[in-house]
């Protein structure tokens, strides 16, 4: 990083634009800092395939130990030779483990895990870009990837080796290992997270004793994410693993799993960055429902509770998820939630944001949903009718109007009698409303006119006004409009000065209040 001259600073601080420009130049960060003070050069060892099999084990161990040396990739020119030696060695080790049998003797396990731990377990640096927008910005990639990638590859082949014995490995791949592994999911480098995903998946599969622990830790990560930090880069990957776990749940579902669904997965929908992991999250939810359909009602009620009120992008995602849920819903469960669900859908359909309205209307293109609606048309149609009819006249977007026509036509054909009844009552309602509005308008006009005709008499009636006001304490104050006295005052010209006017409010315009 070059020094910034004093002239480029303001108040002694570097201007933000300068800082940003500097940062953008480096798109790679590394979490590995050279721990050794002295530079140790690696001496190349013979190839594994070149030594007789009796010596291979020893050489294998030596190579593993050699790979425990870490290098600084932030500086691209130092230690080039040693880095290359390590890279080639790692490559060789990967191949050795993948192709040969009898490699994994008991003594090899601690060496292997030690090499892996040294290389990959590190504290991830804080993000260079605090307002990292995953959809727009480039992620900060790991600079030491050339080595780390091979280490991950090695770990994977190690786990998948046919001679792999979890009973031996579990002494080394223990809870501490898993915990550190989980922390790495927060890496910004997507390639790393991809490897971690596969690795954790294999570990979960093979180490039955660690399963509960892994689930609990993932729970914790998610809960922290939802309620505390709102930041974690590996949510999508963890959800993918969970998807394959949920898929394998035995029936009947344990209470622990149901709790997980309701306390973690559903609230996770409220996260700001939902778009990054929504597909995986929806998959998990649907898998749960396929396992245990009785969960449908609480799930949908939960989603309705958290329904986005101001973020239209999220609303579109929620609607997509609802459609996926409806695709697998059982008709008996549908009956339980149809009312609150369609109330929400009718609100979505009338939403001025065209994408939300379109997505909601598109439900009617789904055969299975149509068949569900048809069976329950008596409940669904009255809920949907009002808003559909209203937007057919009022919506700004012509595409939406065509879609509304399609939906209305479909509903019309399902049950014409009910449709006609609803049309008639809707029209009657609107007529009544219009009439009321008209009456109100007329009343105000009448009042206006009275006021105008009063203004001339205002002076002579001023003490009458006093009395009238004193007596009108319970009534709405039309009297205060521009000094016009109680409407009756002008009409009774021989009215006595002190005549109280309590009768007036009673005769006053009824509907105005």
């Amino acid at each position, binding site marked *: 990083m070059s020094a910034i001259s004093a002239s480029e600073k303001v108040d002694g601080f570097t201007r933000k634009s300068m800082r940003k420009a500097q940062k953008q130049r480096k798109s790679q960060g590394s979490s590995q800092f050279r721990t050794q003070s002295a530079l140790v050069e690696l001496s190349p060892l013979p190839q594994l395939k070149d030594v007789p099999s009796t010596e291979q084990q020893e050489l294998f161990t030596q190579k593993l130990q050699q790979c425990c040396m870490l290098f600084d990739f932030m500086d691209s020119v130092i230690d080039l030779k040693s880095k290359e030696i390590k890279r080639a060695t790692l490559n060789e080790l990967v191949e050795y483990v993948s192709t040969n049998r009898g490699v994994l003797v008991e003594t090899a396990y601690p060496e292997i895990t030690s090499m892996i731990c040294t290389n990959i377990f590190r504290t991830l640096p804080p993000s260079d870009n605090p307002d990292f927008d995953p959809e727009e910005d480039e992620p900060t990639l790991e600079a030491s990837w050339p080595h780390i990638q091979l280490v991950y590859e090695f770990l994977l082949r190690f786990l998948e080796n046919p001679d792999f014995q979890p009973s031996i490995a579990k002494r080394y791949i223990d809870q501490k290992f898993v915990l550190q592994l989980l922390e790495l999911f927060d890496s910004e480098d997507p390639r790393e997270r991809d490897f971690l995903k596969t690795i954790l998946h294999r570990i979960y599969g093979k180490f039955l*004793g660690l399963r509960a622990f892994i689930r609990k830790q993932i729970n914790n990560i998610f809960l922290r994410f939802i309620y505390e930090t709102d930041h974690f880069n590996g949510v999508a990957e963890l959800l993918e693993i969970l998807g394959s776990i949920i898929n394998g749940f035995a029936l009947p579902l344990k209470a622990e799993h149901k709790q997980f669904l309701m306390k973690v997965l559903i609230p996770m929908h409220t996260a700001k960055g939902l778009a990054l992991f929504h597909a995986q999250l929806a998959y998990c939810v649907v898998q749960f429902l396929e396992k245990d359909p009785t969960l449908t009602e609480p799930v949908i009620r939960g989603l309705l509770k958290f329904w986005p009120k101001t973020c239209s992008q999220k609303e579109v995602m929620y609607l997509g998820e609802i459609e996926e849920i409806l695709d697998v819903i059982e008709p008996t469960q549908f009956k339980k939630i149809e009312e609150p669900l369609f109330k929400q859908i009718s609100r979505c359909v009338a939403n001025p944001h065209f994408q939300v309205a379109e997505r909601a209307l598109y439900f009617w293109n789904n055969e299975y949903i149509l068949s569900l609606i048809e069976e329950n048309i008596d409940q669904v149609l009255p809920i949907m009718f009002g808003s559909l009819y209203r937007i057919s006249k009022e919506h700004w977007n012509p595409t939406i109007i065509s879609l509304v026509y399609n939906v209305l036509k479909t509903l019309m054909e399902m049950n014409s009698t009910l449709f006609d009844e609803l049309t008639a009552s809707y029209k009657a309602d609107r007529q009544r409303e219009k009439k009321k509005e008209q009456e109100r308008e007329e009343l105000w006009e009448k009042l206006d006119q009275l006021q105008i005709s009063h203004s001339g008499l205002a002076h002579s009636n001023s003490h009458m006004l006093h009395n009238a006001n004193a007596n009108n304490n319970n009534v709405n104050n039309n009297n205060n409009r521009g000094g016009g006295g109680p409407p009756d005052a002008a009409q009774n010209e021989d009215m006595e000065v002190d005549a109280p006017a309590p009768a007036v409010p009673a005769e006053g315009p009824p509907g105005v209040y």
Partner: protein
Amino acid sequence: MDAFKLMKELRANYEQEGYYIPKETGLNLIESTEQNGAGISAKCRDAQVEDLWGLSSFFGYSTQTFVLAVNLLDRFLALMRVQPKHLSCVGLSCLHLAAQRSAPDATLSSGHELIRIGQRRFTASDLSRMEKIVAEKLHFTSSAVTPLTFLHLYHQVALGQSPSRKEVLSLEKLEAQLKACLRCMSFSKAKPSVLALALLRHEIKAIQSEDMWEMTCHVQRHLKIADAELQCWAERVARCLSDYASPRCSRPNHKKLLWVVSRRTAQNLQSSSCSVPDLPTIPEGGWDPSQSEDSSEDLSSGEESLSSSLEGEGAYFPLHLRRRR
């Protein structure tokens, strides 16, 4: 309108109605045509009328418009041999004509909007040409005597002295029933006066009002409508309306409708449909087949309770959890 005037009006319309009935031979031809044949079949016509019903409902057209449109359509089809591919154009032009005549002051949707919503493939100029043809062939100027005309008059007669009866004998309901009947081609053969009377009597029978029934008999005598004819249509009306009122709904063939969405939504739909997970399922509590025999530390019968993982790994769990077993 007083009773005398009403009766006069009835008579006048009765004499006119003959001009507005579609040609019987033409209707017969349509009924006998097979579906997917060379000409228009009854089913085609019925489907078209259903469509028009949908459109007029959507655009808020009055019953008058719809009934008039159906009348024009039937008369035109009975008169001219129309190819099935032109049927939708004919239907829409009848509707547009009717809309223009019935409610010239109401906000009218232009032909463009009708075509767009109706998902038709022809253009607005096609539509106006067809309208001219229809109007010319039928010598159509402003209105026609339709069953609705009679229905309104009969309704006024039946209300007669007591307008409070409006709640009992609802005109809206009668209009809805008329629309339902018109969707069936067989009713196009009926004389408007007879059809309307049959409809009215059906409803009066349902509400069981003696004196209104008397009124209808009076009207029948006044117009000299034959008993047999009236009875025949009354039966058909009853059958049609019982179908209409039944809770059984017909599954619509929604594949005929075009669902057009904006580009963004289309992209969104595409991407969400391909979410296939690539990690294989991990069965719960199951023995991983690639794992060697290792029963001693592992859980009994696949129990995955938290306590099992506490064995031997003390560091991460507080004591009180361990004791709780």
